[in-house]
């Protein structure tokens, strides 16, 4: 008997029982870890399809010693889709691989139960099944990681897009709200954006708000200094707002000279100062009547 034949027979005869047992094990684990992310119905459909494809693949390779799964096979397609889907839901890679590893356990167990006295045949079958499901596990890892990487690339792109807006507050006033950790790349990007905006709108005043910058270390301070210097070189006056006491301590300890810069405690005070510089102010309209 060929080594793949007993597996094939097993799948043909006991598909439903196997699937039941397999899903029971998987759900037991997943329900604890991801109680809100599971759709049992969907999982069942998917698993049946997977077993069917597995059986088909076994038939196709029934003359060989073991089955090799190609990337173009429907089976690998199902596995990849499943893995990518789990990755997007936030599953851990080990928990995703559990799906196939559990199937291996279940299949091995039933093979051992149904086996006759011929141990060499059983061993051959076990090796074949091991080989096949190992290929599937590797596929799971592979597609899971590439899906994750895709998500990460996308996210870092969107962070870059979102993080450095230059806001035109009034005719000659620009606002640069800095949020989050500032690294060299972001610093260069927002400096560039700011300088372009200053020359385009002929801004005489620029308000740089650093309320949202959590840590003021040496490099962050230097980056901000450079931005401020560059803006002043273009002829725009700079108002810094929202520096924390710790930030002030760091900046002074670094010996950076902020004498050309006006500092205000809050964005509100900074905006008022900027408006005064261009000869405007905010008034209470109720008093006018």
């Amino acid at each position, binding site marked *: 008997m060929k080594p793949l034949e007993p597996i094939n027979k097993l799948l043909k005869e006991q598909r439903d029982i196997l699937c039941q047992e397999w899903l029971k094990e998987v759900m037991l684990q997943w329900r604890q870890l991801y109680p809100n992310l599971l759709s049992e119905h969907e999982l069942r459909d998917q698993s049946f399809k997977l077993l069917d494809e597995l059986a088909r693949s076994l038939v196709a390779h029934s003359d060989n010693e073991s089955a090799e799964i190609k990337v173009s096979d429907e089976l690998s397609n199902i596995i990849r889709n499943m893995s990518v889907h789990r990755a997007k839901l936030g599953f851990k890679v080990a928990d995703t691989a559990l799906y196939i590893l559990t199937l291996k356990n279940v299949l091995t167990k039933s093979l051992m139960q149904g086996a006759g006295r011929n141990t060499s045949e059983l061993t051959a079958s076990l090796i074949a099944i091991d080989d096949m499901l190992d290929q599937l596990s590797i596929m799971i890892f592979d597609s899971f990681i590439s899906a994750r990487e895709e998500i990460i690339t996308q996210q870092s792109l969107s962070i870059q897009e979102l993080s450095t807006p230059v806001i035109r507050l009034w005719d000659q006033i620009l606002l640069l709200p800095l949020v989050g950790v500032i690294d060299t790349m972001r610093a260069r990007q927002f400096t560039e954006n700011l300088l372009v905006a200053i020359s385009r709108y002929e801004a005489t005043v620029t308000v740089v708000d650093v309320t949202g910058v959590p840590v003021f270390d040496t490099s962050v301070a230097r980056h901000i200094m450079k931005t401020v210097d560059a803006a002043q070189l273009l002829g725009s006056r700079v108002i810094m707002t929202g520096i924390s006491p710790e930030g002030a301590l760091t900046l002074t300890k670094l010996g950076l000279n902020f004498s050309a810069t006006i500092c205000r*405690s809050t964005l509100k005070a900074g905006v008022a100062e900027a408006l005064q510089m261009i000869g405007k102010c*905010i008034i209470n309209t109720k008093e006018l009547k």
Partner: protein
Amino acid sequence: MKIPILKLGRILLASIQVDLSDEDALQFQGELLQEIAKIEALGVAIDITSMDVVDSFMARVINDTASMARLLGAEVIVSGVQPYVAMTLVEMGRELIGADCAFNLEQALNMLKSRIASRGDMQLEQDNTHE
């Protein structure tokens, strides 16, 4: 030795009347900064009338405190530098006290008030008092 920090509206007043140890000086610096940030102070007057000796460390602390307070959006005036202190500081290097100085506390407060009055955010203060 704790230096009391007095609050006059949105002006803070700190009078250093004894010789401070280095730790005390740094503690005073920290407390003043926290207080400035807490009340969003518009002005700070540091009075050193009673200090007969100002060493280079103390001068540096005063100078640093002044620039930190400026970063937090407050105007800073140092008042009451004694003649001998002034001479020593000049010998050691004028930049030791880079902040603006006034003759006495009264002059310092007047200077602060006129500077604060010319600031843009005073417009908003008037709004607030009407609410």
